[in-house]
Every structure is written in C-alpha cells, then in structure tokens.
C-alpha cells in the first residue's frame, strides 16, 4: 500500500509514522538504483569498445548501370546469327588496327561453358582502347597489351628479354606514349588460365588479379623491371619502383566454375579502365559473355 502511495505525489501523508515508513522504503531502493547506474555505465563503455573494434563500414558506392545494360532484342538476334554454324568459316569482322579477323569459328568460344581464346581477348582490349579514344573524359588513360606481350617478354634464355618487345611500344606505333598512361593492362596466360596484371601508375602500385586468387611474384618482378626499362628506353630517365606497392587484389569477384576465367579477366580490365571498383558478381557473367560477342558485330556495322 505504501509503495503505491509513494508513486502518488498528490496524496497527503496523514502522520509522521506513515511518512517515516515511506522514507525508509525509498531509501531501500537507493542501493539498487546505484547498482543499475553503474551497470549502465559499464555497458555503455562496453558498447563503445565494440563499436571501435567493429570493422569500418565502407561507404556504399552507387553502382552505375552502364556496365550492366542488357542486350536489346535485335542485338541478341545478331549474336545468335554470329554463333550459327553457317558462319563458321566466314570472316565476320575484321579489326583493321590490330589486323585481327574474327571468324564464326572463333566466336564459338563465347558460347556458354567455353574457354576464351586469345583473339577474342585481343579484340575486346582493342575495343576498350577505342572506347577510351572516343570519350577520353569518361575513361582513364590506359594501355592494353595483347596476349602475346607477356609471353614474348619472358621468352629468351634469361626468362626476361626487354629488347624483343622494345619496338612494340614506339610512339609512332601507338600514337601515344606508354609512360603517360595511368594504367597498363597486361593479360597473363598460365597454361590454361587467364589472369590480369596492372601497372597502375596513377596509384603507384602493381596489381595482380586472379579469379582463382592465385599469386605470382615473378610476374610482378618482371613487370616492374619492364616498366623501369621502358621508361629508361623511351625517356632516358631512371626511375625507382621500390616505393610502389605490390597488391594481390583479394577483394574481387571469383569464378565459380572451370570456364569463366577469361570473362572475369577482361571484365576486371573493363571496370578498372572505367575507374570503378570490381562491383560485379559471379552471377552476372552470363550477361557479360554474351555482351562481349556483341562488341564484335558492332564494328562490322560501323
């Protein structure tokens, strides 16, 4: 009864006795309150500790739609036609700058579950370069080596032969200097697997992207050496890459089957040359592999 009274402030206390009893009951609650108070303090400090331990949340980046645009109906039809067996022997596209001729036969490697061949990758990289030339303000200044480059660089007896690729990158040949590029993409072929190495001048690092998360220090060392030699040969300057970071990109979309490494490799290059993070997932590869084949018929119509 007293407890209920104490809650009601307006009630008048009839006698000293009742008042004293009331006071006692209030005082009995103080230790309990103090205990609760200290517990709150403890929990608040615990919370702030956990907050600080929690990994920093990355700011959610807005993923642009452009890289994910699906094909239109008529484009799909064009792709289907390219795949048809009637076109196997026909040259569907000739890419003038790189001398590459794509026949129906070669396009077959863009079908689901097929391995990508070097021609298709080379054309795709040429197209990325042309895209950049068309809209230089939208894309980073990049250079894309073809699939023959790395094989040639590591040819010879000493496993490193700068001379044999020296003439590949003359100003006359490229129309720009390799040194002024922000990113240089080098496709790496490992017997049956495609990886990508990037000489990233803008951020001063060498990057290696493998959709199976492999690592290869030799690739990095040779490319670093190549870049030093190239700068020396073309500008006569000695540079030192020892301050550059070697980055094996861990946070990347991985392939989940035995035939997608090529598609992943060229898509890494696509996103990096846009200056984007690798914001695609394994599931979207089906769209991409068809999208790639679309690139080729396009030149034909140009």
């Amino acid at each position: 009864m007293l407890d209920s009274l104490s809650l009601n402030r307006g009630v008048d206390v009839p006698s000293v006795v009742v008042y004293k009893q009331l006071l006692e009951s209030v005082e009995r609650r103080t230790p309990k309150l103090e205990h609760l108070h200290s517990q709150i303090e403890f929990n608040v400090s615990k919370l702030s500790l956990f907050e600080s331990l929690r990994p920093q949340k990355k700011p959610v980046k807005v993923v642009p739609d452009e890289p994910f645009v699906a094909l239109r109906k008529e484009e799909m039809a064009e792709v289907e036609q390219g795949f048809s067996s009637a076109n196997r022997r026909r040259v569907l596209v000739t890419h003038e700058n790189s001398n590459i001729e794509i026949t129906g036969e070669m396009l077959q490697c863009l079908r689901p579950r097929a391995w990508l061949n070097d021609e298709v990758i080379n054309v795709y990289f040429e197209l990325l370069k042309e895209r950049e030339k068309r809209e230089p303000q939208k894309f980073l200044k990049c250079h894309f080596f073809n699939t023959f480059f790395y094989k040639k660089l590591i040819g010879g007896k000493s496993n490193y032969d700068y001379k044999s690729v020296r003439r590949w990158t003359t100003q006359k040949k490229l129309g720009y200097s390799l040194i002024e590029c922000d990113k240089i993409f080098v496709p790496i072929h490992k017997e049956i697997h495609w990886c990508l190495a990037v000489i990233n001048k803008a951020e001063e690092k060498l990057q290696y992207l493998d959709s199976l998360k492999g690592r290869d220090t030799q690739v990095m060392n040779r490319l670093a050496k190549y870049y030093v030699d190239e700068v020396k040969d073309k500008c006569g300057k000695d540079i030192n890459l020892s301050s550059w970071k070697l980055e094996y990109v861990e946070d990347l979309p991985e392939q989940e089957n035995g035939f997608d490494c090529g598609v992943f490799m060229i898509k890494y290059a696509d996103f990096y040359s846009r200056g984007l993070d690798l914001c695609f997932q394994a599931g979207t590869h089906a769209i991409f592999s068809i999208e790639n084949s679309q690139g080729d018929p396009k030149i034909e119509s140009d």
Partner: protein
Amino acid sequence: MGVGRRVPVGAQRNMLGVPNRPTRILLLVKDPWENVVVFRIKRSAQLKKLMIAYCDKKSAELDNMRFVHNGRLVRPNLTPDEHEMESGDVIDVVPVLLG
C-alpha cells in the same frame, strides 16, 4: 681504265643512280622455344605463302598458329611491304592460347 664492258657491282641502280631496293627480303620465323626458320620472300608476295610454308614444315595447323610481327598480328593477305617489314625482321609464331 680500259675499254670494256661495264659489269654492274652492288645493288642495281635506276636512271637517277638511286639503288633499287632488293625485291626479296629475309624474314626469320621464331617459335617460343627460339627455333628459327629463315624465309626469303618477295616484298610483294602475300604473307599467307610464308605462313603456309612454315606450318607445312612444322606439320602444324594454320588455324592453331598466330604470327606476330612487332606486337601486331600478321594478316595473311597482306605483303611484307604493307606490314612495313624490313629484311632480317623476326616474326614470332605462337600457338593459340585458351583459358
């Protein structure tokens, strides 16, 4: 000097005395294992000829081979002149890469 028939020495010259370019050049075809096959080919002949001859010699299938000159693919129906090849240039031959 005696009076005799003049025998031309060195490169043939045209009316203005400018030496003619030799019509044939030497091209070295090198595989990834550094084996070299040398071809002598007319500047105006299609490179298809060289590619087929090489594949015949090596018993390789033409479709499975890539010929690369200074980083660019060799187009079979172009000539050494159109590719700006010089005598002594190396053409790399590489098998098709898959992955």
